[in-house]
């Protein structure tokens, strides 16, 4: 449905439907995204060029110690590593617009191929991890928030704080040693058992631990945030009014507290989950999961501009989309929120 504009000679207030306003918010955000992607990719090239990493060293991979300076210069020339970062960026951009994402020096294959091999696995892990994170944190956050100060709240809050403090690397290793080595419930690494083909069943088994750990890593901020949102909603005037009208807690919680707490929770989720899709480096390393997290580190160290740029652009896009989705969801569930971006 399009915006309804009332006729009139004056700049009369435009009355638009809620859905139209949300649509406009989305359009505006996506438009902002374009210059944002340009600026961030430009900054990526500039920062990478200013870093102490040398793409020639990455190409030589430690075996080029015998080259003279003149030979090293000739190699830079042959490999096209002498390019100024701005030229490299411009070339990347113009090629990318025609659909050519370039060649990844760190993976020795076209960027499109690197993405086709890894993006799916990253997405699978990221989405599974997000589901685990949202379900677990919603359950724990609600349980803790509705009985703030109770035993469940104390246990859950303490667990969340401790989990927050432990480095994800240790959580991941602990999970491997507990579930894979000692209990033997799930395999520790890869997409299938060693030497076997990938099947849906093997993928599901191999996905279990990394998705669990990745999801767990996001539970503390989300669960604690939801708990906070619930307790502050419960202290609000609307709830006091509802209680004064004699409504039972069950109804108050379902009709007043939880809807009010949902908007800030969605904002949290939208802000944090995009990093699960490209930032799962530690989890991917420990579980030998062949996603893009690995590629981020490799491409940064090798000054692999084409791959680095694509990964960064992907991240920016996800952050923009994540925040947008959160705002839209918040506007949908909470009529008090203005969807004017």
């Amino acid at each position, binding site marked *: 449905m399009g915006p309804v504009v009332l006729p009139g000679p004056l700049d009369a207030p435009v009355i638009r439907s809620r859905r139209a306003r949300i649509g406009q918010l989305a359009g505006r955000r996506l438009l902002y995204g374009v210059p944002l992607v340009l600026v961030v990719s430009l900054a990526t090239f500039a920062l990478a060029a200013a870093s102490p990493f040398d793409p020639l060293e990455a190409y030589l991979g430690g075996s080029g110690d015998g080259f003279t300076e003149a030979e090293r210069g000739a190699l830079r020339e042959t490999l096209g590593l002498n390019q100024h970062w701005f030229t490299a960026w411009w070339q990347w951009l113009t090629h990318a617009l025609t659909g050519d994402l370039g060649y990844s020096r760190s993976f020795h294959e076209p960027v499109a191929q690197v993405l086709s091999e890894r993006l799916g696995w990253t997405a699978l892990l990221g989405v599974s991890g997000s589901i685990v994170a949202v379900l677990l944190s919603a359950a724990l956050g609600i349980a803790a928030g509705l009985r703030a100060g109770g035993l469940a709240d104390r246990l859950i809050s303490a667990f969340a704080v401790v989990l927050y403090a432990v480095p994800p690397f240790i959580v991941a290793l602990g999970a*491997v040693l507990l579930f894979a080595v000692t209990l033997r419930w799930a395999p520790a690494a890869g997409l299938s058992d060693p030497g076997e083909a990938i099947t849906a069943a093997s993928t599901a088994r191999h996905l279990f631990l990394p998705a669990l750990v990745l999801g767990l890593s996001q539970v503390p901020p989300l669960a604690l945030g939801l708990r906070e949102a619930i307790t502050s909603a419960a202290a609000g005037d609307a709830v006091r009014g509802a209680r004064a009208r004699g409504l039972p807690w069950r109804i108050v919680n379902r009709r007043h507290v939880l809807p009010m707490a949902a908007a800030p929770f969605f904002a949290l989720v939208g802000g944090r989950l995009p990093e699960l899709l490209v930032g799962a480096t530690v989890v991917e390393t420990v579980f030998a999961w062949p996603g893009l997290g690995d590629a981020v580190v490799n491409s940064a160290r090798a000054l692999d501009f084409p791959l680095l740029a694509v990964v960064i652009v992907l991240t920016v896009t996800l952050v923009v989309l994540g925040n947008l989705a959160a705002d839209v969801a918040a506007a949908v569930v909470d009529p008090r929120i203005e969807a004017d971006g």
Partner: protein
Amino acid sequence: MVQTSPRQWCLLVVLAVVGLAGCGGPAPASSAPDRFVVIDGEELGNFNPLTGHGSNGESKIYESLYRVAEGQDDRIPDAVPVLADGAPTPVGGDLTHWRVQTRAGITFSDGSTFGPEDVVATYNAVINPAFAAPIAANFDFLRTAKVSGPNSVDLWLTGAYADVPHRLFLAIAPAETLAKPGPADKLALGNKPVGTGPYALTELRADQVVLTARDNYWGTKPQVTTFVVRRTDDEKARAAQLASSADGTRLSPALAKAVAKNGYRTVVGKANDWLGITLPTGNPVAGDPAIRLALNLGVDRGAMVRDILEGEGTAVSTLVTSLYGAAYDPAQDFTFDADRARKVLDSAGWQAGADGIRVRDGKRATFDVAYYPTDILRRDLTMAAVSDAKKIGVELKPVAVEKSTMTPEYLAKTAFMLGGGGQPYTLDTQLYPKFHSKYATAGAGSKWDNASDYVNPAVDRALAAARVERDPAKRAKLYRDFQVAYHAAPAMLALVSENHVYVVRDNGWKFGSTALEPHAHGVAWGPWYSLARWTRQ
């Protein structure tokens, strides 16, 4: 000397957890009896001979003219002919032209026939600048290769060279795959290797590589029919995964000892993988002959091997070690003697100052030592050297640097924690570029060649004569002469050589000793160097 860093705490925690987890019961047997699964720390794929795959004859997919013999780590291992038929023979008397007979009746994994043109194509490609091969400098002795008969190849060298067989370990690819010159990393060989070796690549996935024994291999078909390589670059994660999903990997000595139980054991590969500190002539303190000698006497290499390498290594004084058999003169090693080091400095006029650091003519005995902080071993060795030097009144100041800092100008004035051991199969490749005065002037050779800018005519004479000496016994004598000359006036502060430690599941396979290993990281070495020759117990 050793501080407890967060990384070490992390290691301790991991060791403790690994130890506890090990109590979970015996490891399950590998599901398929002819399969062996390893976890590599290196990136999977990249099977390109020009970018360094199998450059010392260790590839499972490709073969080389010669490879090093396993089980010989008390001398330079023999060069065993593989694609070559017999040893190379010099043509003419000046050692600049050699002929290699190649084997007939061998096919590549794609069914094409192997011939001398493949050898010629691969060697010419590696030295062709258009291919930009990262390992090109290892073949700077070679001018060109030509087919000289139905089964023979002629090599023309850039100068006289005696020990040619130990330089011909390059993995050979079919000529057709190298027909179009261009940057080596874009060759199709990287992902679609074609070799004459015992295994062929049957699966290349982002998370695993599967090599399968070839039915039409010209030699004996390997008994390990499937070799699965997976990858995890973090060694603590590798240690954790090992028990549930793999039969072997490479680890640092401490971790290897922690996981070597419940059916796993460690295998130590002797390696020439040395580390030492350059003492450049361009630095008035580091380049002073008395300082150079005193530091060599004043560092406790034995303690470094014991405490930092956990015993898995050797002290190195002259870069010649017991690995080199008759060429090694143990009497020329520096034995730890701090008192003698102090006397050397006293008699050279370096007098102890108020703060314990020596002074001569108003100049303090202090200089910077640059090191790469991301390499834990280099960092620990640097700190140990700093602490030992302080006890004899010399102050080394550790400076963490990135690779891009290491310009030739910087290296000419600053001491640096250097690693070596790329091609350990001739003493010439180890010593000549490091100590011949030809590389002491700016711009000569690579920046790492003779990084101390050391000039010693006696050393030059021995190294030049050994390079063209064909009789191994006489060559060994010349290298012993080198050690005598070096011992009297050392160029740098060589410290230790690190052995490589592997963990292997005992699942009924019998394998021989490891081969002398170069500086390398992957699972191509260790017990897997001889994978094609493993047998069932």
